[in-house]
């Protein structure tokens, strides 16, 4: 049985948790920080992207690049089931997106590129085309727009998809379906598009 002793460290953690709880429940709000329940679509999209980008980077660097290229433990492959390999980072991202889409239509996310390995991932809507152009010119700035798709209105955000690991560029540059073979580390290889549903 594990017993927790009241050490200075634990007391500090408890105080931190209490402070965070207090802030969440009723801390003072400023005019540029929307109150809970009134989060703007842009903040929502930015927050989602922060999570997605971080998880994707961790997977690309600490799982795929480390295990495949550095420690040479296991390969990552497009046909990961047949080859008993790791899914590619883009596949991980897409599988997550598909799982989310099965749970909710309140938001969605996808990877698109002007140089996709799978042609179905080319930009299709005006916002996607404009967004990819925008983030290609200025990768540090997201692109925001509103668009109507079918009967629904969306807040659409496009963020640069940066090559964060040598595994990314090695795979894309060597793939026979890739329209480009000259990607370098840090290049914007495409974009992450996040859509927030605005209509009920």
């Amino acid at each position, binding site marked *: 049985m594990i017993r927790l002793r009241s050490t200075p460290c634990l007391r500090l953690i408890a105080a931190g948790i209490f402070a965070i709880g207090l802030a969440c429940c009723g801390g003072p709000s400023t005019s540029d920080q929307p109150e809970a329940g009134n989060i703007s679509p842009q903040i929502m999209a930015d927050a989602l992207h922060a999570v997605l980008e971080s998880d994707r980077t961790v997977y690309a660097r600490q799982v795929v690049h480390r295990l495949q290229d550095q420690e040479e433990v296991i390969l990552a492959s*497009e*046909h990961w089931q*047949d080859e008993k390999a790791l899914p590619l980072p883009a596949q991980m991202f897409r599988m997550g*997106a*598909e799982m989310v*889409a099965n749970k909710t239509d309140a938001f969605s996310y996808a990877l698109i590129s002007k140089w996709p390995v799978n042609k179905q991932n080319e930009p299709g809507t005006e916002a996607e085309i404009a967004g990819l152009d925008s983030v290609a010119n200025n990768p540090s700035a997201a692109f925001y727009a509103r668009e109507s*798709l079918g009967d629904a209105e*969306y807040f659409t955000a496009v963020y640069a998809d940066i090559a964060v690991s040598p595994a990314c560029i090695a795979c894309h540059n060597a793939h026979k379906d890739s329209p480009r073979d000259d990607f370098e580390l840090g290049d914007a290889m495409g974009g992450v598009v996040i*859509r927030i549903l605005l209509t009920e």
Partner: protein
Amino acid sequence: MRRNRLAFVWTVATVAAGLCLIAYFFGRDRRLFLPGETTSGHYQIERACDACHAPFQGIRQDACLACHQADLQAAEDSHGPEKFNDPRYAEDLARLDARQCIACHAEHRPEITGAMGVTLPEDFCRSCHGDVTEERPTHEGMAFDSCGSAGCHNYHDNRALYEDFLVRHGEAQPATVAAAWPQRNAWISGETRDAGPLGAGDADSPPASSRPDLIAAWANSAHAAGGVACSDCHAAADAPWSDRPPRAMCSACHELEYQGFTEGKHGMRLAVDLDPMSPAMARLPMHPEALNETLDCGTCHDVHTVNVREAAVDACLSCHADEHSAAYADSPHARLWEREMSGEGDKGSGVSCASCHLPREERRIAGDLRIAVQHNQNENLRPNEKMIREVCMTCHSLALSIDALADKENIRTNFFGMPSGHVQSIDMALTRTEHP
């Protein structure tokens, strides 16, 4: 006078409509209400309207998935609904909601139903892949109605047809090697029996039910060798003795097999509480003398001898009378089966009907690798390329497998001789790999 006649007609019509409604909701035979002939995949259960329809709500998508989802997931569905959920496809979905099975597989529409029960025009691939020649110049001049019918692509299951698989298995390989089917190890799914082999003297049947021929058959069976006594089936769980235990009794131990049986055309009627399938109901040619059989476990597996060898060929051919089945006896596959049965061939070297249509599958169950017979004989039947990986490639090269399954005449003769045509897909894939 005219008013009375109108009242009479109105009364008759009302009563008739009422009777129709009563028959619809409470009757067992609802075929009167079928809007059109049911496809070969569903006609056996067409009287069980509720299996697919919800009252006043049309077809239930979850009803389709209840039977087909596991198969689609195993097939790594190339066009699963999750592929189309992105809002960017909203306009495309407004034209054709590809997330719904009935968008492509409308039922009771024989006038527009094609292969695989598809009710779209045969060139349906064009709507999304119309510019395929931009990426694949090799496809120049190919008709869009041949994408899925020439042995190159399937809409759902491309596990044996995707480009890198073609490349990996398309290099020069021997067309045929000796068969070596895996041996079954998963016949018991319930409690593990600790009784040793039993003999005729161990039969625990009551005297009135102790026919010597049945006891002798059982004493030489795998059941007796595995310690399964008479009472384990005829008086299971301390139930009173029954000379004819219910068919579901087998599933107590053979759960995987029974599940597969009720998912395929031999047993699918049982899954919706209809009477068992009979060859008389079949749309395929059957032997006249077999028409009145009813299909359950004991139809193919004699319940006392439980001879799986008889079930693998003889049982099939006692009912099926189509050209493919009739040609089996003269086929190279049958030669191998005869050699194994006579002891000349190695164990697992023969090719029976069951080798291909009820194949042995590997499954992970609670961490254990189980090899069991897939008793859903339709699971790998259509499109027939589903057989390539788990069945054909056990002995044959990918190239020969693709060519043979695309050759209707070769199938009709039960693969007597080599395929007459050649599917170009492997050549195209290899060319593109060498000259991307």
